């Protein structure tokens, strides 16, 4: 059954303004980068042929691949166990993992510095416990980058794989065991082929998250040897003051990322969803002990850096309780503005960009779902191919063409940059919901004399409610944690919470950074709760 061309045209018309706006906001910075890069052909050619560029690409591919692989492999056994047994604390740990989607990278950086740092809380504890015989050296190394990426992405892989396993029936596994196969043979021959698509999707998603990694690389790598392409673009722009070279590298990165997006987009497989409800077992004996061990491992991996932040927000390095960081919040701190100003900036920018992203993404997703084409979704994925540092760079080039410069203008540029960064994620969040709305619902409305537009407004739009809310929350969390583009565009005039935290980390002012991080974490968790809250019985499932 299909809609007449005239009716699908409605969805395209509806999506068109959003697409045009997205294209403009995306093409503006990218065009500016291209213009700048092509104005110096020699620099472009030398960047593309420079062996250092290719070494940089090799390293970026390596760190993203290892981060994604470790995250997925580590998450797999946990997901297998959590999708088979029901035990005390299971739901809480799954919720915490889901919440980690909303965790800004800057919090991981600060948490790692305070917890794993050479003078961090873990080493302090080890010094007391082992009388100084054992000291961990984690930070400022390749393993620190990988560990931080895994810290942020293990919960992503864990949630995705557990969700996929829970949506599948375990009848095939049961049949395999009844036919005499061992646990291992059943896993390798039955379970693994079923979740191959999910594992590939999780790997791809994490790989794409880690490829343009900037903050973690700059703060925890501590050595230009470990620079990714995004970090190098930032260095060439702001440290070397060589925008032509930075633009050439940004274009190289954009081309590579576009190829990766297209390749991974084609290779992704869906998950077979079973309608048969899966019954979770109560763990007994060895599996009960395993449930305790696995739960503890997750808690011990995820919680310490965040608890360390909470601790440092109220205690000095020497362990003395203080509220200084909180009372200083209203005073002028690093750069322009105060901590409170940064909170206000973050909230306003995140609110506006996520609202705009939600509205634009709704019409784009409905258009993509009804036209049954991956082209629209791919088009809106394109901003993902541009790292946020490059995006910031592009916007600052574009800003050069504007004759006046003031704070308001900077705010607008930051808002647009945030919008472009979060929009692809908003579209991806709403698209599955749009695809789930049966075409028959609007056809039904039409047989009752309603127009396509009326059917869209009254029938389809309300059904996207929970997806829109989730997209809003996801966009808000992403915007809230955004550092790179804001740093590049704010020109010191605009401090958001993560930007201020980043600056404070660089000044070793961990206490104030921690106090701000507690606020950032609280807002991120509140937004996560909003996204996950039940939306009544109106959603499509």
């Amino acid at each position, binding site marked *: 059954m299909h809609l007449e061309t005239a009716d699908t045209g409605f969805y395209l018309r509806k999506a068109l303004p959003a697409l045009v706006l997205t294209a403009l906001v995306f093409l503006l910075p990218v065009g500016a980068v291209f213009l700048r890069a092509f104005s110096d052909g020699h620099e472009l050619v030398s960047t593309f042929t420079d062996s250092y560029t290719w070494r940089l690409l090799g390293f970026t591919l390596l760190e993203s691949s290892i981060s994604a692989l470790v995250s997925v492999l580590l998450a797999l056994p946990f997901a297998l166990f959590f999708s088979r047994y029901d035990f005390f604390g299971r739901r809480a740990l799954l919720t915490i993992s889901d919440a980690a989607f909303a965790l800004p990278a800057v919090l991981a950086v600060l948490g790692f510095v305070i917890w794993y740092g050479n003078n961090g809380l873990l080493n302090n504890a080890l010094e007391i416990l082992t009388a100084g015989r054992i000291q961990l050296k984690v930070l400022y190394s390749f393993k620190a980058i990988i560990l931080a990426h895994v810290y942020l992405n293990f919960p992503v892989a864990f949630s995705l794989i557990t969700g996929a396993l829970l949506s599948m029936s375990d009848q095939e596994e049961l049949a395999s065991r009844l036919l005499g196969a061992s646990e291992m043979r059943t896993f390798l021959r039955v379970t693994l082929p079923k979740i191959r698509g999910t594992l590939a999707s999780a790997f791809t998603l994490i790989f794409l998250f880690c490829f343009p990694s900037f903050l973690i690389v700059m703060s925890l790598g501590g050595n230009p040897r470990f620079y990714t392409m995004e970090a190098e673009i930032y260095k060439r722009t702001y440290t070397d003051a060589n925008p032509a070279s930075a633009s050439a590298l940004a274009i190289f990165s954009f081309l590579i990322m576009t190829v990766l997006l297209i390749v991974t987009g084609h290779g992704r497989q869906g998950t077979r969803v079973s309608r048969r409800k899966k019954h979770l077992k109560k763990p007994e004996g060895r599996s009960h002990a395993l449930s305790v061990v696995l739960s503890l491992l997750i808690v011990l991996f995820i919680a310490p850096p965040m608890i360390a932040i909470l601790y440092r927000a109220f205690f000095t390095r020497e362990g003395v309780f203080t509220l200084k960081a909180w009372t200083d919040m209203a005073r002028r701190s690093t750069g322009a503005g105060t901590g409170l100003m940064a909170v206000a900036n973050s909230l306003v920018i995140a609110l506006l960009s996520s609202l705009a992203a939600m509205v634009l993404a709704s019409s784009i997703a409905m258009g993509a779902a009804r036209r049954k084409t991956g082209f629209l979704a791919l088009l809106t994925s394109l901003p993902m191919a541009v790292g946020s540092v490059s995006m910031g760079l592009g916007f600052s080039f574009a800003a050069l063409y504007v004759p006046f410069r003031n704070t308001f203008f900077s705010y607008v540029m930051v808002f647009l940059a945030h919008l472009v960064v979060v929009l692809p994620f908003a579209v991806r969040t709403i698209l599955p919901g749009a695809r789930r709305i049966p075409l028959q619902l609007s056809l*039904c409305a039409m047989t*009752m*004399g309603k127009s396509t537009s009326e059917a869209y407004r009254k029938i389809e739009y309300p059904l996207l409610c929970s997806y829109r809310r989730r997209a809003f929350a996801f966009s808000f969390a992403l915007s809230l944690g955004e550092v790179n583009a804001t740093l590049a565009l704010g020109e010191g005039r605009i401090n958001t919470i993560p930007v201020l935290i980043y600056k404070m980390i660089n000044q070793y002012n961990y206490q104030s950074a921690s106090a701000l991080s507690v606020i950032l974490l609280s807002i991120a968790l509140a937004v996560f709760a909003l996204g996950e809250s039940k939306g009544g*019985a109106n959603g499509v499932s």
Partner: protein
Amino acid sequence: MAFLECRDLKRVFPGKFALSLSLEVSRGELLCLIGPSGSGKSTLLSLICGIDRPDSGRILIDGRDITDLEIRKRNIGMVFQDYSLFPSMSVGENIRYGMKETDKAERKQKTAELLDLVGLPGYEKRSVHELSGGEAQRIALARAIAARPDILLLDEPLSSLDAPLRRRLRTVIRQIHDETGITMMYVTHDREEAFAVADRIVVMKGGRICACGDPESIYRRPSDLFTAFFTGDGSAIPMSYLTGSETVSVAFFRPEDIEIDARHSSDKYYTLKDAVVESCEFTGSLYIVRLSYKGSKILVHSNHKPSGHSVTLCILRDRILEMKDDLQ
């Protein structure tokens, strides 16, 4: 004059399927479309309600050409197999959605009447998520009727329900048809359902109509072997086994038109001696006996169990249909 007229309708899906037919439906008639999967039943409904457009031909309702009209301007109701109730609305809101009445009290009153009609009084405030399959389909029916369509199309409305519920609901649908007098086109793959509800049955195959008539004549006097077997059980054996004459045609008869081990006069019955019993199943009300005669298979519904392995069959002469063997 026909109320609904499909005139030389053609719809081609290159390399897959082609629909080509003409059909007339009278005002107030309940017409059932039956046929195997891919015979074009749902395609025909899609063309009539405007979800799809024909490559050529016209569709007229009460003399008005609706072929090029938008879906919403056709005033044709549709009930889908999966109910398609709007999940964001309550039962009452679903029913009122397509109503033409504007007065609030009148709409409320009409909702209550329709809920009574489908046997679900007091369901107005319920969420559609609380409904069972049978209840959801009745609400879908009420919602479609509420819009006062000229014709109601039902696309396998009972397919996703279990057998006892299907039997109960088909009676409800027939009663609603009789009370409202609405013209209905009902697609089903269940021949028993079609016989139970239809005024007239159209049998489709490969995008064409191969038989059309009232249920009894379709069952008793099918025009070809496909229709004969599609509309009920039966046996087809070479005509020469019965008459002794040299002919290539086949004799078709229903299982209830044969008796086992009976002694009847030859002017009313054909007799087949030494038919071999291959299986015998007792269903409670009768025996289903499968036999073999000179290599042909024969199915019999018998009131008693065959007396032995080799039996004599008596087939009612006037129930035998001589047909071309067009199934091979």
